[in-house]
């Protein structure tokens, strides 16, 4: 099969994933918007009102973190399962397996984009103006996508043989939520751990996105490059691992 037809496949799978997720009902889509909003409300109440965390534009600050985090956790969990879910096809047809993982990440990515629309609505409501620098956002989103895809490749290739992974991953996600600056600023992390802390690519991406969208900082090129390198590295490792394992999926499933 040519690469062009891979593209058709990815598109077809993504559309179908998305359709199946909401089963053509708008109410279901409403839920996917409501989840981050409810999460936002809860976290906002707990950390801003009860714990009195002092962060400017805390609602927007939280929302970016939640949106990015939700994308990561949803995309990785669904794509980890995607090979199993499409086992019927993988076992019975000869077709590029990676398409399945890419498309399930992509359909989560669509949710991310829709959630970002909510975010922009919020910026209007809370009167935070967007500046020209926000134009880099798509670049960050692509970085985020590559990062998530890399993790997903690794997880999905590992999962058919090692089913305990799903439990481990839920656990890791739970930890990940707290070691990523979603509800707090990374500046609250003690100085001596900060160097290691900032190796977390998601933390970097969330930070960078907040900087350009809410606080209007001009990003530093060196930092952007470091993030990019980390994301591409994870992606490459995940993809290579996946490619090595992919001939055996049909019998492992």
């Amino acid at each position: 099969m040519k690469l062009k037809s891979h593209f058709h496949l990815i598109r077809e799978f993504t559309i179908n994933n998305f359709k199946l997720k909401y089963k053509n009902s708008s109410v279901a889509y409403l839920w996917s918007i409501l989840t981050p909003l409810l999460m936002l409300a809860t976290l906002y109440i707990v950390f801003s009102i009860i714990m009195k965390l002092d962060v400017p534009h805390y609602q927007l600050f939280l929302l970016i973190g939640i949106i990015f985090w939700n994308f990561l956790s949803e995309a990785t969990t669904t794509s980890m399962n995607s090979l199993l879910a499409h086992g019927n096809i993988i076992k019975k047809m000869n077709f590029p397996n990676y398409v399945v993982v890419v498309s399930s990440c992509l359909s989560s990515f669509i949710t991310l984009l829709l959630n970002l629309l909510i975010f922009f609505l919020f910026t209007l409501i809370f009167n935070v103006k967007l500046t020209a620098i926000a134009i880099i956002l798509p670049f960050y989103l692509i970085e985020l996508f590559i990062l998530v895809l890399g993790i997903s490749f690794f997880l999905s290739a590992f999962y058919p043989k090692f089913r305990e992974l799903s439990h481990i991953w839920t656990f890791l996600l739970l930890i990940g939520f707290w070691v990523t600056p979603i509800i707090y600023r990374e500046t609250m992390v003690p100085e001596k751990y900060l160097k290691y802390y900032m190796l977390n690519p998601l933390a970097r991406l969330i930070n960078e996105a907040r900087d350009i969208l809410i606080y209007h900082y001009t990003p530093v090129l060196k930092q952007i490059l470091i993030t990019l390198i980390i994301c591409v590295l994870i992606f490459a490792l995940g993809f290579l691992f996946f490619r090595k394992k992919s001939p055996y999926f049909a019998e492992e499933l």
Partner: protein
Amino acid sequence: MEVITLKNTSKSFRLEHDENSLKNRFENFYALKNISFSLKKGEALGVIGENGSGKTTLLKIIAGILKPTSGTVNVKGNIMPFIELGAGLQPELTGRENIFLYGALLGFSRIEIERKIDSIIEFSGLKKFIDAKLRTYSAGMQMRLVFSTAMINNPDILLIDEVISVGDESFQKRSFNKIKNLKSQGKTIVFVSHSMEQIKTVCDKAIFLKDGKIKASGLLDGVIHTYFETVYKRDNNSVFNSFDKKIKEILRREKEQKRILDSINKTQKDIFNRFKIKTLKKTFEKNEVEIDELKFSLSDLFENYKYMFESNLNSIDQKLSSAYDKNDSKLIKKLENIKYELLEDFKKLLILRTKFCDKTEKNKINHTLKILMHDQSSFFKGTKREINVLNEFKELLEKEIKQTKNQKIKEKLLEEFETIIMRISLLDKENKYGKKKTTRSFRRRILDNKQTLDNEKLEGIILVLRRVILDINENIFNLQLKKKNYLITKNKKKLLECKKEIIKLKQKRKKLIDEMNKKQKIIGVQRKNSNVKISSVRFLDLSSNETKIFRPGNKFTIEITYNSLKKVKNPVFGIGIFKEDGTHITGPNTKFHNFKINFIKGKGKAYYTIDSLPLLEGHYLVTVAIHPYNSFIPYDVHTKLYTFKVIKNHIEDFGTFYINAKWKIEQN
């Protein structure tokens, strides 16, 4: 050009034995071991084997879905695998959406499919349902959708794994036609099926897999034969028992279905029991599918068994005919016993089959059953076995007569019934009077003849006697029928009268037969001194080899070897061909054909050749005679001593003759 080449290909899986013990937990299991074969472009390969023999694994390896553990696989061209129904489809999407999805799996873009979607839907014949969700489709409908979509890919190589067997008959036919069509277009096909009929219609080569190894490969018939020999080498009785069990299971389930339907109808009146109805309906549907599956597997097994019996019978027939030639009476007896048992088992199988099929099928099977019994009875003509078979035949007919309501069919059946009873009574008589039947093919009775006036007279008397005896037979038969009627109506007086009359007639007949036998003996004694003898008669095929089995349209030659002790002037060679029921089909002789023979002396051979045998399926008897030019009293005659068999070929026809004719239709 080789399109598919496998060289020493093996595939092993790691089998998990016991989850609890860590030692020896895994074991390497070879699903395929050292498979080597190659397939040229345009060839069709049938893959046969029992479940778990590695057929699907082989297809998956060819398709590239699985990677071989060792060895190489070389495939050139665009492969389209049909490994399992519904692979790549989404039950929650509509048929139309699934066409796009499946098309994308085949590497087509949305636009390309949009261009072709009308023809896809048309070929699938699912126009009405195309916008319904796939989960509402039946298995056959899903198959149609997949198959029609896959055909736009224009694949070079098709891998088909038993999927065609799903779907209704018209779809199967269309798919088969499509496959044959594709084959004639030069596509290569690998076809897995349990049904030998399907394999035979599609493939020209086959391999037989057993435990992952190639057990036989090459030409179709040979492979199928070894398959049957290895797979069905079991006690037939145990197989029949399992058949019986399955049938009982089906019947039980069908009863249950009825019960469920009843309770559904009952609860339907109760509006508040919707949930209950739903669950009931669900179990009903599930049961229905399971019954269908059971029936399907049964009929598949049945077809295979039938096929096996038929091929076995054919091979036995061939062995028998060669045994006849060698005149090895021990071997003949042995083979005949085998044949008898085979036929008995075959009949058992057919009778079992009638228990779980619909009416049209039942009629078909009854028909084949009748043909079979006919065959059996004619083959064992003149032995006790014939009577057994005829009695069975009678019972079958009785049942059928009871069941049919159509008057015309009933009359036909009654006619058949009468002839059977005639034959039984005839046989009974023969057995009583110890007269040996002459039609046993290998039991050659050579009668000689002396040309005398007395002889002519005696012959005439015998003919008259025969006629009278036949009349009496008919009378007896009619009386017996009457007797039966009286038995049913319980008219005792008339019954007694009938009985008396029958006894009278029988006594009369006995006298006549005694007389006839006496006369025949005289003729027989006289014949012994004849100068001309027929020493052997053989049937030859196209290449002048002896055979007893022909197909319609074959070249057919009768070779008569004679021995004339003295010089005999103007002899006439005559031949009579009869159907097994006695119908005289043809009686050519050299005199009628103006073929003049001046004289014969010493040993010689005469040939009678039909370029294209116009006879259809059945057993035929042959009489050969040599007689003088001016008289029908023969020097030597072998009356119905020789048999040959005509078996089916591609010509589908009914009756006795194959008549080469043309149809034409003119329409305005």
